[in-house]
């Protein structure tokens, strides 16, 4: 959608930070606390898993104490049916209608299954959910998800956890240019420049998990990617110069000394 304003609304959440933090892959809750603070993220994603009596240090309590918005995902679902049930569990657990909808095709590439994803998007949108649809970088699929009721479309830059950056920038630009809902680049970001490129392409926000949580120094990387996200956003709306074939001097031609 490419909005130029400082704040952005995703689902029913107003944000000033355009970096959404995925908590997956963090070595500890302490690291999650540090990267939330360092990144200034206001929205974080979580998964839903079986309650484990021996697990201590409740992630839920930590996130509540940090006053961030929590976006439940449907990670681990491979069919629309599973994803719809998981979304409903997320709604009950967190009392939110927002859901990051993931319906994956297989374990190896973790790529979204567009057919199951579309079915789940339709069902959940009809049930009052604000669907954040995690999808491939296919502009046709992105458009179809929006028509099916997705409130946020989240194309991948590269497969989850690969850190390969944005493999098809032109597709992301096409998705942005045709969308009337916010576009969030999700998956594939490996380092700060990838986040800046996503924002320069016109994405409204980026979602980053592994690039921060699995970095050698997660806190430093959180700050780096946060700054890059903001830099990319400012750059997008600062109005870049047109590319030229040949040089154009920035110093004036007039008044050059004559030493002959």
């Amino acid at each position, binding site marked *: 959608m490419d909005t130029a304003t400082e704040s952005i609304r995703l689902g029913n959440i107003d944000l000033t930070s355009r970096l959404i933090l995925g908590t997956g892959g963090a070595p500890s809750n302490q690291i999650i606390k540090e990267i939330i603070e360092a990144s200034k993220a206001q929205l974080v994603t979580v998964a*839903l898993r079986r309650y484990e009596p021996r697990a201590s240090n409740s992630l839920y309590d930590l996130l509540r104490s940090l006053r961030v918005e929590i976006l439940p995902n449907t990670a681990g679902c491979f069919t629309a049916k599973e994803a719809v049930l998981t979304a409903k569990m997320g709604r009950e657990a967190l009392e939110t209608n927002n859901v990051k909808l993931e319906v994956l095709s297989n374990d190896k590439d973790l790529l979204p299954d567009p057919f199951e994803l579309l079915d789940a998007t339709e069902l959940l949108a009809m049930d009052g959910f604000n669907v954040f649809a995690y999808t491939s970088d296919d502009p046709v699929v992105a458009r179809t998800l929006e028509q099916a009721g997705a409130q946020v479309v989240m194309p991948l830059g590269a497969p989850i956890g690969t850190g390969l950056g944005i493999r098809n920038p032109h597709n992301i630009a096409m998705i942005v240019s045709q969308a009337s809902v916010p576009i969030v680049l999700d998956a594939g970001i490996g380092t700060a420049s990838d986040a800046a490129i996503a924002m320069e392409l016109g994405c409204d926000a980026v979602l980053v998990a592994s690039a921060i949580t699995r970095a050698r120094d997660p806190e430093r990387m959180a700050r780096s990617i946060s700054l890059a996200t903001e830099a990319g956003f400012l750059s997008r709306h600062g109005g870049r110069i047109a590319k030229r074939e040949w040089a154009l001097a920035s110093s004036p031609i007039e008044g050059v000394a004559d030493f002959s």
Partner: protein
Amino acid sequence: MVEIILNGSQHQLKQPSTVAELIDSLRLPGSGIAVAINGEVIPRSKWVEMTLSAQDRVELLTIAQGG
């Protein structure tokens, strides 16, 4: 004694219990968790009235790290 299947394992209830009583007995907070019974999500508002039956398959989920 009522035996249910809680998150894939056998679980004994000393007496017939509601979902709310099960959650109390596990000393869980009421927030941040969700319950499904036999593949159906049980809304929070039904926890006090929904009684568990023998061999009910109960999924009790909480939030975990996720991207």
